[in-house]
């Protein structure tokens, strides 16, 4: 089964684990992306995430389908925050269960790598002295 959510409230690691755990799973891999305190050598105060929610969900679904065509997966969980996330707060959780741990690792990494490339979600970083949309300018 797949779970995809875009939400403006705290993401819980345990929600992910409960969803992906399975009696036939041989390996479970979970990626957690958190907000760093530094960016471009400056001290970050917080982030804000904005999403084109319906399209983000359908793009994530496409990535999961591609992962499932490449690896034999049991359950896949993808949750992403919108709104304000403080330093050390969780921005994204990707969880994958598979019969084989290699598949779990590879699919989990594939999903986060692709999510960062194609899913319409934007991050605005706030510093002491201003804010900017990440990657917007060359």
């Amino acid at each position, binding site marked *: 089964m797949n779970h995809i959510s875009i939400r403006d409230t705290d993401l819980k690691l345990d929600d992910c684990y409960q969803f992906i755990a399975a009696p036939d799973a041989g390996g479970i891999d979970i990626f957690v*992306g958190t907000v760093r305190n530094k960016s471009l050598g400056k001290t970050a105060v917080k982030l804000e995430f*904005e999403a084109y929610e319906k*399209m983000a969900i359908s793009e994530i679904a496409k990535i999961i389908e591609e992962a499932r065509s490449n690896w034999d997966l049991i359950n896949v969980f993808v949750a*992403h925050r919108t709104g304000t996330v403080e330093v050390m707060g969780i921005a*994204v959780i990707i969880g994958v269960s598979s019969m084989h741990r290699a598949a779990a690792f590879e699919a989990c990494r594939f999903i986060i790598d692709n999510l960062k490339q194609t*899913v319409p*979600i934007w991050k605005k970083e706030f510093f002491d002295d201003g804010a900017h*949309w990440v990657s*917007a300018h060359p």
Partner: protein
Amino acid sequence: MVLQILAFGIAKDIFGARQINFVVPSQCTVETMKDLLEERFPALKRLATYAVAINEVYAVPAQYLQEKDEVAIIPPVSGG
């Protein structure tokens, strides 16, 4: 025809709104719409790049727009 164009991230800041109404010729491709948008909002040209989505799917430059389409400006994504 009049397109309703959604904007996200820095495009929302450039447009000054989450959604704008924008007049384009009746036979209008994505590429032409981008040219017209950049005339009205030159700041778009300073972006690293930006894509257009039609009905929640990434569009190609030669694709034609319909008045009822949900059109969205997708600046460089930075989720994760």
